[in-house]
């Protein structure tokens, strides 16, 4: 082991062999290609873009129920509520439109992004609360209700637009955040010793108890979701925290930097796949 470390150190010093050390580091673009190829290879009948429909892309019986559900979708009320909140002026007369590029319409596919000034990942949910706080309003609960409603509306105005997440090459901190997100995604945790990947990479389409597991690819494109299991809407924050709980891990705080990093990584993996949120899920 010590010998190997020495070799690597020598290699790095040697300069020309730098490429070998680099190979162990992430190339987000290469990761993304491999990630998408894994899923299209595992499910050759599912078109790439259809992965945004989660378990419905890989189970005929479920798909039929979903299509019927979409004729009058359960997230309809949240969507209307979100539109109302989005357009309602704050006490200072400003609105969400003043906080976002393009007045907040059709931009969901660009979140999360890496903020060069603060060196942190900014998710859409964080940006929504930052907007509220900047304008002297109380921030929303990250898990559901108003946050789910506003992000539902913002996703809705962005439907069909492909995820366009960037890991700026000129900022090593961005790659670091991406790397951390990747590690969180693959690292097993909780008493059940599961990682995100254990379920959503290795077993999508399979049943765990009664549930058909969603593929990790495209899982965030449909957020926020109305989940029958929840009897209501939930955000990405809710999705992550509930996954932790289900493997008997104590969830981190919503929008903890770790969760933001995972969202960054996972959204990047879905680059090119269209936003489909808000979604309905079992």
């Amino acid at each position: 082991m010590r010998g190997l470390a020495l070799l690597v150190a020598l290699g790095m010093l040697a300069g020309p062999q730098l490429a070998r050390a680099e190979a162990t580091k992430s190339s987000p673009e290469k990761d993304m290609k491999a990630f998408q190829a894994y899923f299209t290879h595992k499910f050759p009948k599912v078109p790439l873009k259809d992965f945004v429909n989660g378990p419905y892309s890989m189970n005929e019986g479920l798909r039929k129920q979903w299509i019927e559900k979409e004729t009058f979708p359960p997230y309809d009320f949240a969507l209307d509520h979100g539109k109302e909140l989005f357009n309602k002026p704050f006490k200072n007369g400003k609105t969400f439109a003043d906080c976002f590029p393009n007045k907040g319409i059709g931009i969901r596919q660009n979140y999360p992004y890496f903020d060069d000034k603060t060196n942190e990942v900014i998710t859409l949910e964080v940006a929504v609360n930052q907007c509220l706080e900047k304008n002297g309003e109380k921030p929303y609960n990250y898990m559901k209700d108003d946050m789910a409603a506003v992000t539902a509306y913002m996703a809705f105005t962005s439907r069909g637009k492909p995820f366009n997440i960037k890991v700026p090459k000129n900022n090593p901190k961005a790659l670091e955040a991406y790397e951390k997100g990747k590690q969180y995604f693959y690292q097993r945790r909780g008493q059940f010793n599961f990682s995100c990947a254990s379920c959503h990479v290795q077993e999508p389409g399979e049943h765990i108890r009664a549930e058909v597991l969603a593929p990790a690819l495209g899982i965030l494109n449909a957020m926020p979701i109305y989940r029958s299991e929840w009897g209501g809407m939930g955000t990405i924050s809710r999705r992550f925290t509930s996954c932790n709980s289900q493997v008997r891990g104590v969830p981190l705080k919503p929008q903890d930097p770790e969760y933001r990093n995972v969202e960054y990584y996972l959204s990047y993996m879905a680059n090119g796949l269209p936003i489909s949120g808000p979604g309905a899920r079992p």
Partner: protein
Amino acid sequence: MASTIRVRAIAGADTTEVQALVQHPMDSGFVKNAKGEIIPAHHIETVQFETGGKTVFTALWGPAVSKDPFVKFSFKGGKKGDDLKITWVDNKGATDTTTAKIM
């Protein structure tokens, strides 16, 4: 306050198809909350659909109808621009009504 009732009524050649979604918890009375206390039954009992002074459909619902209930039916006649009035009443006496235009 937005209406609790969403309606889509579309006139076809000789029938009108109505779909409605109502925002309501539809608590069954069999579910416990986080503290282990039974959440009392709270559900819509009747929904009435009227057009042209005539009731075209009545739903009688028990607690086994899903949360935010959905219903779809069709009736003969009805044309674009006609009013369709929907009224629900729940077991606690709450009620809401809305009038939608047939599309």
